[in-house]
């Protein structure tokens, strides 16, 4: 490859005095003074959260109000900083959703450990754990920074569901059961 040698242009007298450069710089900063500020005045003005933002991890319910988590503990195992702790529990046989079998008795996410990587959301087979829009978690004690199950559902709310996996399963098993009879 041919090398093209560029001659550096010698500085003119005025350039060597440094004064035109200073004046040019002053002009640039003066134009900046006249430009509007880009500051976002935080507590009053909030940033617009882009789609797919990874905020605080939360637990969600499906549109029918069923809690989606089945306490399979995949998120707990994949969590790199070990921020998640799940105590699995059983759904009583009398409940309407008894066929789901399991639900977490307690679900804790320690926000002092969480690194917002989103692996829990990625690994969840039930789409039950979501990193949503909230970006600011504060607390005055360490205990306050551990989100328990109630708090996680409060933060998560309900997300639209396109599968209704367990409803389909129930309908399918009933259909099959009906077919046998």
């Amino acid at each position, binding site marked *: 490859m041919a090398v093209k040698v560029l001659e550096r242009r010698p500085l003119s007298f005025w350039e060597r005095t440094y004064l035109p450069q*200073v004046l040019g*710089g*002053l002009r*640039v*900063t*003066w134009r*900046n*003074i006249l*430009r509007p*500020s*880009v*500051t976002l*005045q935080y507590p009053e003005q909030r940033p617009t959260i882009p789609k797919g933002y990874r905020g605080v991890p939360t637990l969600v319910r499906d549109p029918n109000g069923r809690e989606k988590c089945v306490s399979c503990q995949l998120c707990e195992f994949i969590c790199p900083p070990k921020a998640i702790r799940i105590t699995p529990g059983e759904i009583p046989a009398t409940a309407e959703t008894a066929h789901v079998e399991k639900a977490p008795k307690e679900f804790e996410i320690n926000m002092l450990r969480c690194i917002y990587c989103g692996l829990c959301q990625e690994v969840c087979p039930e789409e039950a754990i979501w990193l949503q829009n909230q970006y600011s978690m504060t607390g005055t004690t360490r205990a306050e920074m551990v989100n328990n199950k109630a708090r996680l559902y409060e933060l998560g709310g309900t997300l639209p569901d396109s599968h209704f996996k367990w409803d389909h399963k129930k309908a399918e098993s009933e259909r099959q059961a009906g077919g046998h009879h």
Partner: protein
Amino acid sequence: MENLLNDLLTSPGLLFVGVRGVILIGIVMTIAGYAVLLERKASAWIQGRLGPNRTTLPFVSWIPLIGPFLRLGGFIQPAADGGKFLFKEEPMPSHVRKIYYVLAPIVALAPALATIAMLPFALLPDGTALALCKGADVGVLLMFAVSSLGVYGIALAGWSSNNKFSFLGAVRGSAQLISYELAMGLAVLPVFLIASAPGSDHGLNLTAIVASQEGLWNIVRQPLAGLVFLVCIFAETNRHPFDMPESETDLVGGFHTEYGAFKFGLFFVAEYGHMIIGSSLFILMFLGGWHILPGIPEVGTGIIATLIGLGTFFTKLVLFLFFFVWVRWTIPRFRYDQVMRLGWNVLLPLAVANLVLTFIYYAFAG
């Protein structure tokens, strides 16, 4: 009442001089505080930010229109800053030379305040200058001499801190002052040469210098001297792009690395005090002092003229302080060797050449 006011303004009695001094120091401290605000606001505007706009007081925020204006303009911020400095803990590092460590901020601030006593701000109706210490014929010489003493504060701080960064900052500060003091003194000589040309009755008096600029400002007569003097006051006040003694990037905080709380506050005020002095000197010697514009005759008579002169002077001062700030947030810091080269190889020869040319001009033409 009127007698008291007159006495307060002009009486040579010790008590009245003392009161005048305290008032002047109060005014200068206030200007210094608001110069800090100007610095913060202007830097914010240059960088596309808003600057301090939160600080307010309960009873101020209740006033409609003015309250929000004061809050958004950050006008309460200097009081908050000063208050913070006052109430902070004053740690005394164990490795410092204690007496000199405490003495240094005082030595830095005292010359700045002492110099301001000699600044004339306006012309009184009786033709003398409105200044704490008026009419000294050696005015400018004394001002240069005393204001340069401020560097002792820096040197003392750097040495007594017993810290290599502080010490380097102090050494740089002293070297810089010596290098630029020469060019500065030589740059203003032509101004006095013009003012005290044969036949005129002007000495080294600043009032006389201002009076000699009534027709034409010295910046037009002596642009080169003006430029050299301008660069020199930037260097003398240790402002960007010459803030060698501080240079945060390579010396942590320079000479005030070991200082905190109000001792640091004193250094801070001293820097702004020197800025006020430098700006005032430039305005008095090159920008026509209390004259509004060259060629415009004095407006009003008696005390009204004095007040208008005072207003003109302070307007120019504020604009010049803004210029200081504007330059600071525009130009990056010079390297130490560049500063030295600029001082000795460029400014000094320029000042000498300018002086010699003025000599020749007046020898043959005047």
